[in-house]
């Protein structure tokens, strides 16, 4: 399951950053990948659609949101957490 979540999240981020999935490293931040604030909001929307979950995120205070977006790895972990919480996976 974890592998799939990681691949799906990387796929979404890669598409937003116009990169190959292989070029998206787990340590990278969205900023490193060239994703701006609009791209971030679009990525979160894509994640919600792909996993059918609600992501708690307010663009006014990204650092205060429960959803950690500091790196690709953090996003994957946050999505896994939300899946467990919202879908009982």
């Amino acid at each position, binding site marked *: 399951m974890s592998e799939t979540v990681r691949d799906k999240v990387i796929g979404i981020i890669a598409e937003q950053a116009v990169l190959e999935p292989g070029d998206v490293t787990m340590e990278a931040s969205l900023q490193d990948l060239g994703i701006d*604030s*609009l791209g971030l*909001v679009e990525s979160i*929307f894509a994640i919600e659609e792909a996993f059918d979950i*609600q992501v708690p995120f*307010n*663009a*006014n*205070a990204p650092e205060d949101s429960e959803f950690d977006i500091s790196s690709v790895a953090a996003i994957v972990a946050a999505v896994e957490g939300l899946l467990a919480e919202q879908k009982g996976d």
Partner: protein
Amino acid sequence: MRRVVITGQGTINALGHDVPRTLEAMREGRCGIGELELRDVERLSVRIGGQVKGYDPDARFNRQQIALYDRFTQFTLVAAHEALDGAGLTFAGELATRSGVVLGTAGGGVNTWDENYRSVYEEGKNRVHPFVVPKLMNNAAASHVSMEWNLKGPSFSVATACASSNHAMGLAFQLIRGGVADVMVTGGSEAMLSFGGVKAWEGLRVMSKDACRPFSANRNGMVQGEGAAVFIFEEFEHARKRGAEILAEVVGFAMTSDAADIVMPSEQGAARTISGALKDARLNRDEVAYINAHGTGTAANDRVECAAVSDAFGHHANELMMSSTKSMHGHLIGGTGAVELLACIMALKDGVIAPTIGYEEPDPECALDVVPNVAREAKVDACLSNAFAFGGLNAVLALRRAP
């Protein structure tokens, strides 16, 4: 040069169904934002707004009118009635041809779109009411005002998102100053608090779920409002000769485009517009005692706006007062600059500065006097009203106390 004065004002918004009640709420720092009451609200994640409550269309309009008037048009007509009653003007003969109406709205008949999409997509109906198009069009409000009061001069609607009303009023000012018209009915209206209207804003992730707290360090987004405000702009000599009560003078206007980003505001663009309005008004920076801020309560706007004011005003930025009344009536999108002009007129005419309510924590990036939480008495000779729209379109008005 022809001068332009304001001789009438009217409104309906979350703070009150007319000007006296709205100004009373602003003086008391009352909040008009509350739980949204609308169909399918349980499917929204943002459930607060500055909604006009206790409003009964049937008490204002007959059945035939309601069939043609979207909520944004109804709000406009309610506000226009109050403004024109106050101005004491009737339009016939040459004055009718020299008078027009320019109104701002971003969405126009959003409720009409929403209701009819529901009916064809959700309910599967294959027929809609014959008046859907004339009801939803953005210029419907301007046209109905024109018809109701026989205004036959330049008339149109302006849609520049959150700057629509300021652009509309700026153009009305220029039309009179430039000699094209003698009287203009102007302002703006918005009625976007429908399921689709709020859902669309939710998507952008910039909305607060609890309160609008402009300039406060813990601000977490904007809150939508609805309503209208309408003003009578009149050529000064025309108003003087008929002995009209003058509420304030419009002395300058500037509009610019950032040409940069579709949602992020630009400090440079905002500062350039503020400076442009001062120059157009021939105002010295130190004459401006009050600014009605755009002040949306988003992280980006409030930071950028404070920096722009500091940039445009230099040291004087620390002397002037700047408040955001959106904290009380919400963000009326295309109608917001109009409702906010009421606060500017109150500052000039009554010497009362409407507060920024919901202010809880100072933000070093918004270190101006934002008139936190409590209204203040002050003598104001000149003021500005800022609007900085999505799309990078900026519009700033400059006003002076009545001559």
